[in-house]
Structures are given as structure tokens and as C-alpha cells.
């Protein structure tokens, strides 16, 4: 698989039309499917997760259509159960968890630290294949009947009662989980061992710190969900009693094991997004990030604290009140590093020369939506309020503010920010701003009414509801439609820009960071010669001093 055997990085002698880069170096299906170039693998991931994003989105659309009217009239109750289950499973395991690390992280981690590739390029390719195999298994499972337990597949319903395809869905997630573990393993080794000379830990971009923290969760959390899935599959096929109380087992053990991974998994989604925020906000404020060290360490502390709060998903499940008390307290502790980040980003904006390009619009959206999502998370960490709103739309709204308002806004912001580097083309700025605005409006219209719905008592996972909830549900469905348009727009103009977009300069944003100091798109080994770093991260004051005019 050593296809990069003879790459002579020739000295730049007046490139004729288009410089050689990782995209035009080789053509043909084989050169993509057998590539070990982290940038090509990143694009393979981009394609495949976009595919699953639209599948998950399609399910979401059907859910919202069903909820347009109080009666259950569009689909059967069974089908509705399957819709929200498959929406959750696809979005969590096949879109959100791989999204930023596998696409942007894969592309940028080596470039930002001045490396030629990730430490283990072939393992990187293997991780994509595992993802694809898991994805095909999931597709097969969906096409042959799907699952109806909710994405949490709680026992004993999943092991002793439902007659849907639990084992197949579980195995699909098991395989995709190993893809996630391998990505995390690769990042940690790469960040430790592959940094360019002078790229000390205190000079690392915060994107790298965020991915380091994410990787810790991936490698320590994912194996636990893997073994949990094995136990569920064994219990279901052999009718054992590991989690089934009728046979002496403990369903709470399942919930503990499940949330031990699945709560930190939320930080797998949000931490990389926070990394993107630090890059975008510093760049478009033209300032060094405020309190660099604190923002870096807060990523690590979120990863660490994130492992200690899982049982706040189980406050009403019958755990000890003293345990609940501790988990409630610990859950509050996650708010501290999260708030450190939000305050430091805000302080970075202060007296910055802010530019309102599309990535920055997403960053502003992220700041507001993540704050709302985080603060409502504190409501849920409080024992009394949690009992009141457990399993209502309040919870649904809360985690969508984090996963969609936070993680997805960050992903889109990052995709716009680095698109010129990835594709070598500029995207159409005014369309992108319109899309960012559409996403923001559509998102709030979809999910804010759900906070109210949940607070006044509409439970989640029901396909019909009392008529007095209809107005808010109609607002939510209307918002989902706007949101859908907002997601389609970038896909269209990104594709358009690949052919018709203006060729991107090497550093269109005049951004700091090693990835901008090489050509767009980069060559296979990223840099003509190994970079030597002698400056601190986000040295925007320095960058802007010699040419006070700035770009554009």
C-alpha cells in the first residue's frame, strides 16, 4: 500500500497551471480507496458522513412531519419508534461522533503540528473501512426492519422483549466504535510524537488540544460500550440473565455501562467543535486567544470530568439518592471548564477587529446556542428539576442545543473556514452567510419551542399528543424545514465551488497556524520542507503589524 514511494518534493519552479497537490497527484478509484494520505482519507470520511447525515436528517424530517398534528396520522406507532431510534443511532454513531475528528481532525491535526501524516496512516485508512463496514451493517439493519428501542437500547426491553434487529444494530455500532478508537489512538500518538521542531505543547493550536482531549475519551470510553454491546447481544441470543432482572441480572448495570461511554460521547462531539471555535474566533478577531493555557487545560478537564458524571442520566432509574447527589454535584463541575471557554472566547472578542465572514457567523451561533444548551444542562443536573423534566422534550431540546447547536454549528463553521485549504477553492461568501443565518433561525425555531413543550409536560418518544401542544409543535416542524434548507445550501455551494469557485490563495484569511503556510490544497506531504516553529500560537498582533491593511 505504499503508493507514495517516490514523491520528490521538487523545489518550486514556477508552477505552470495548477500546482501538484494531494487532489490532482493521482486519479482513479484505486488511488482513493487505497490511499494512506490523511487528507484523502479525510475526504472519504466527509463523503460518507454526509451521506449518513442526510439519512439521519430524513428520519428527523419524518418525525417532525408526524408531530405536525396531534393525532398519529402519518406513520404507525411502531414505525415512529423506529424513526426516532434510527435517527438517534445514525446521527450519534455515524455522524456526530466521527464528524469533526474524522473529517477536519484528520485533515488538520498533522498539518497544524507540521507533520507529513498521522503516525499510523494505514490504521487511519483501516478506521475508515471499519466505519464503512459498520455503516453498511447499519443500512442493512435499517432496510430489513430497523430497531425500535431508542438509541439507548435499554435492557431488558432490548434483550428480552422487542423483536427488532437489536443484535445487528449493536454489531454495526461495535464496528464503527473501533473506527473511532483507532482515530483517537492515531491522534494521541501523532500529537505526542510527530510535532515539528519548536512546536511545543504550549504552542499547539487549541484545535489540537481539543482533539487530544477528544481522543482520550474515544480510547477510554468506546471499549466500554463495545463490551456492553457484546453482553447485550449474548444475552439476547442465548437468553442469559446478565441485565434481565427476571433472571437475576441488573438492568441498572446496563445503564451504568452504557452511559459510562455515552455521556462522555457527548464530549467527543462538542470538544472538537470547541477547538474549531478557538481557531475561528482568534482569526476573525485578529487577536491571540484570551487565556490560552486555561482554554487548553479546560479541554482536558472536560474530558476528565466527563467520565465522572454518567449517572445523571439515571436519576429516576432507582439509583441511591446519595449517589445521585454526588453525580449531580460532579455534573455541575463540568460547567466550570465549559464556562472558562465561553468567557475566554468572549474576552477574545473584546476590542478585537471582528470580521463577519461565514465561519465567524457560525462561531457566534455556537456561542449563543452552546450557552443555552449548557445552562439548561445545569437545570437537568439539578435533582429536583431533573425529576420533573426527565423524558420530556426539555431533554430533547437541551441535547439538541449541544449536539446540533454546538457540535454541528462548529462543524459547519470549520468546514467553511478550512474549505479553501481542503478544496483549493473559495466558497461563495454571501450564500454562506445566508446559509449560516438560515441554520441559526431554523435551529432556534425548531428547538426552542421544545424547551417549553417539555417544561409543560410533553413526553419524548410519543407519536401523538394532546391538541394544546400543537402550536409549539407546528413551530418546531416549520423550524425543521428551514433548518433542512440551511443544511442543503452549503452542500450545494460547496459542490458548486469545487468547479466554479475562485481558486483559493494559500492563506485567504491571513490566519496564523501552520496549515495556512503551505499551498492550497497542500501537497501529499503537506510541507515542502519540515517547518520549524519559533512563534506562539495565534500571533495575530505580530501578523497584522507589518501589513496594517489586511486582506480584502
Amino acid at each position, binding site marked *: 500500500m*505504499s503508493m*507514495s*514511494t*517516490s*514523491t520528490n*518534493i521538487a523545489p518550486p519552479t514556477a508552477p505552470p497551471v495548477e500546482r501538484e497537490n494531494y487532489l490532482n497527484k493521482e486519479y482513479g478509484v484505486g488511488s482513493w480507496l487505497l490511499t494512506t494520505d490523511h487528507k484523502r482519507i479525510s475526504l472519504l470520511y466527509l463523503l460518507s458522513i454526509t451521506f449518513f447525515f442526510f439519512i439521519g436528517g430524513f428520519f428527523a424530517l419524518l418525525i417532525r412531519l408526524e408531530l405536525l398534528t396531534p393525532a398519529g396520522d402519518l406513520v404507525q406507532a411502531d414505525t415512529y419508534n423506529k424513526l426516532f431510534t434510527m435517527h438517534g443511532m445514525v446521527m450519534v454513531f455515524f455522524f456526530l461522533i466521527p464528524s469533526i475528528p474524522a473529517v477536519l481532525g484528520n485533515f488538520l491535526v498533522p498539518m497544524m503540528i507540521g*507533520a*507529513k*501524516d498521522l*503516525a*499510523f*496512516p494505514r*490504521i487511519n485508512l483501516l478506521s475508515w473501512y471499519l466505519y464503512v463496514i459498520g455503516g453498511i451493517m447499519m443500512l442493512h439493519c435499517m432496510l430489513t426492519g430497523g430497531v425500535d428501542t431508542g438509541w439507548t437500547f435499554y435492557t431488558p426491553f432490548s434483550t428480552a422483549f422487542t423483536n427488532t434487529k437489536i443484535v445487528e444494530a449493536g454489531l454495526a455500532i461495535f464496528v464503527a466504535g473501533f473506527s473511532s*478508537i483507532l482515530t483517537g*489512538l*492515531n491522534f*494521541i*500518538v501523532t500529537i*505526542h*510524537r*510527530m510535532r515539528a521542531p519548536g512546536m511545543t505543547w504550549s504552542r499547539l493550536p487549541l484545535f489540537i488540544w481539543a482533539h487530544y482531549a477528544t481522543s482520550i475519551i474515544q*480510547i*477510554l*470510553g*468506546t*471499549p*466500554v460500550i*463495545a*463490551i*456492553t454491546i*457484546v*453482553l447485550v447481544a*449474548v*444475552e439476547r441470543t*442465548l*437468553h*442469559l*440473565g*446478565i441485565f434481565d432482572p427476571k*433472571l*437475576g*441480572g*441488573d438492568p441498572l*448495570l446496563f445503564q*451504568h*455501562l452504557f452511559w459510562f461511554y455515552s455521556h462522555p460521547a457527548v464530549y467527543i462531539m462538542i470538544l472538537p467543535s470547541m477547538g474549531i471555535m478557538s481557531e475561528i474566533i482568534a482569526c476573525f478577531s485578529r487577536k491571540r486567544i484570551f487565556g490560552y493555557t486555561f482554554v487548553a487545560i479546560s479541554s482536558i478537564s472536560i474530558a476528565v470530568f466527563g467520565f465522572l458524571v454518567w449517572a445523571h442520566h439515571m436519576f429516576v432509574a432507582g439509583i441511591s439518592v446519595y449517589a445521585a447527589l454526588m453525580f449531580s454535584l460532579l455534573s455541575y463541575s463540568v460547567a466550570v471548564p465549559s464556562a472558562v471557554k465561553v468567557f475566554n472566547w468572549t474576552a477574545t472578542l473584546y476590542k478585537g477587529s471582528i470580521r463577519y465572514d461565514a465561519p465567524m457567523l457560525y462561531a457566534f451561533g455556537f456561542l449563543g446556542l452552546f450557552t443555552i444548551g449548557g445552562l439548561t444542562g445545569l437545570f437537568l443536573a439539578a435533582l429536583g428539576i431533573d425529576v420533573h423534566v426527565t423524558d420530556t422534550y426539555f431533554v430533547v431540546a437541551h441535547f439538541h442545543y449541544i449536539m446540533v447547536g454546538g457540535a454541528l454549528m462548529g462543524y459547519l463553521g470549520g468546514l467553511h473556514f478550512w474549505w479553501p485549504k481542503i478544496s483549493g477553492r473559495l466558497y461563495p461568501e454571501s450564500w454562506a452567510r445566508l446559509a449560516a443565518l438560515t441554520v441559526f433561525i431554523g435551529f432556534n425555531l425548531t428547538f426552542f419551542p421544545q424547551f417549553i413543550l417539555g417544561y409543560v409536560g410533553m413526553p419524548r418518544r410519543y407519536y401523538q399528543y394532546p391538541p394544546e401542544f400543537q402550536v409549539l409543535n407546528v413551530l418546531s416542524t416549520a423550524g425543521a424545514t428551514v433548518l433542512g434548507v440551511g443544511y442543503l445550501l452549503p452542500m450545494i455551494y460547496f459542490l458548486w465551488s469545487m468547479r466554479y469557485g475562485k481558486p483559493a490563495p494559500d492563506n485567504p484569511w491571513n490566519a496564523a497556524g501552520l496549515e495556512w503556510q503551505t499551498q492550497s490544497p497542500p501537497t501529499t*506531504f503537506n510541507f515542502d*520542507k*519540515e517547518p520549524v516553529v519559533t512563534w506562539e500560537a495565534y500571533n495575530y498582533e505580530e501578523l497584522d503589524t507589518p501589513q496594517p491593511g489586511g486582506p480584502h
Partner: protein
Amino acid sequence: MSSSHVSTTIPAEAHDAHDAHNPALLHHFATEEQQRDSASLGMWIFLATEVMFFGGLFCAYLIYRGWYFGDFAAASTSINAALGGTNTAVLICSSLTVVLAIWAAQTARRGLLIVMLVLTMLFGCAFLGIKGFEYKDKFEEHHVPGASFSFDHVPIPGHPGQYANPQHAQIFFALYFIMTGLHALHMIIGLGLFTWLLWAAWKGRFTPEYHTPLEMGGLYWHFVDIVWIYLFPLLYLIDRH
């Protein structure tokens, strides 16, 4: 600054060409040391994921052992501690031969290296064979969880007149089979790995300067051994003190 050049063929006149460039150095690493360190760190992280993977099972085991201690102790007496003990000895010996294999590579003793790798694999196969006998016994005694499971009138050690609850004993056996089964699967993967190492050693790939795959394979093998070191007392020796 290294020349970015990869050659996949092993030059026949390795002695002369050796100081020029190690053919095993991959293009994206600057030095051999960086490549070795990366492999080693990657392996340790992989082992950390393995610890978490088995950790979920150990967690389940500890909870049910606490809940159903008497039943677990009764069930534990029915598995053959002598065979389990033998297997422990076999695995410890195999760890020794792995270490000797690496030493042989470090000191350029190709013949010894091959012998040690073969011995390691023989020990591995012996372990699996003995394990197979144990499984066969359990199968014949109807101790395999499922429809034909039976565990009636087995006394709880230390509590005369009390009998183990078959349902709770079944949880023990379920965990026994899942944990030892998963361990055996790791052994089989290890044997596959060592077959490849043996082939590479036969071809003379390993030198005192370059034997990273051997060290990585060794780390994996030791890890699988250590898992057994925990499984043996937890499963076989609950009430044998």
C-alpha cells in the same frame, strides 16, 4: 532532516547498505527513534483500550460476585482448578519465551529467535487445548448457560444444607464463558500475530537495530497473559483459600 525515500524491498547486501538507510523507516517519520517511539506509544494506548474493554466485564463480575457470593463460590468449585493452574503456568512460560525471543533478536541470534517464537506458539496452542477440555467438561455437565443449563443441588461452600440458586450460578457461568472466551479469542489473534512474526523472523527481517514488531507483539502477548492472571483467581479460586 531525512531523505523521504521508501523502499519496500530488502537489499540483499544489507550489511553494506545498512548505514545508509533502514529500509523499514517509513516515509512520514524523520528518524527511526521517532518511528519506534510512535509504535510503542500506539501499542500502549491500544492496551489501555483493551483494559477498558475487559474492564466492563470485570465490573459486571464484581457486582454479581458481591450480590450472589455463595452461588458464585459454589459454581466456582465446579470448574477444574488444576487445569486452570496448569494453564496459568503455561502462559507464564510463554511470556518467558517471548522475552527470550526479543532478547535473541536484540543479540542477533536468528536461530534462537525462531525457536523461541515456535515455543511461544506451542505454549499458546497448549493453553487453548486445555481450555477446550475444560469447555468440553462444562458442556457435558450441562453448565453451559442456555436452555439445557442445570445446576441443581450444588451445596454452597461453608453453608451446610444450603444450595446454590441455579439462576445466579448461570450468571457466573455466563460471565465465565464470556470472559474466558474473549480471552481465548485474544490468544487466537495472538497466535495469528506470532505466525506472521515467525515468518518475518524466518526471512531475517529482525535485526538488533530493528525489531519493533517483535516488541509490539510481545507487549500484546504479555497483556493477554496478564488478563489471565486476573481471570484465574477470580473465576477458579473464589472459595479455595
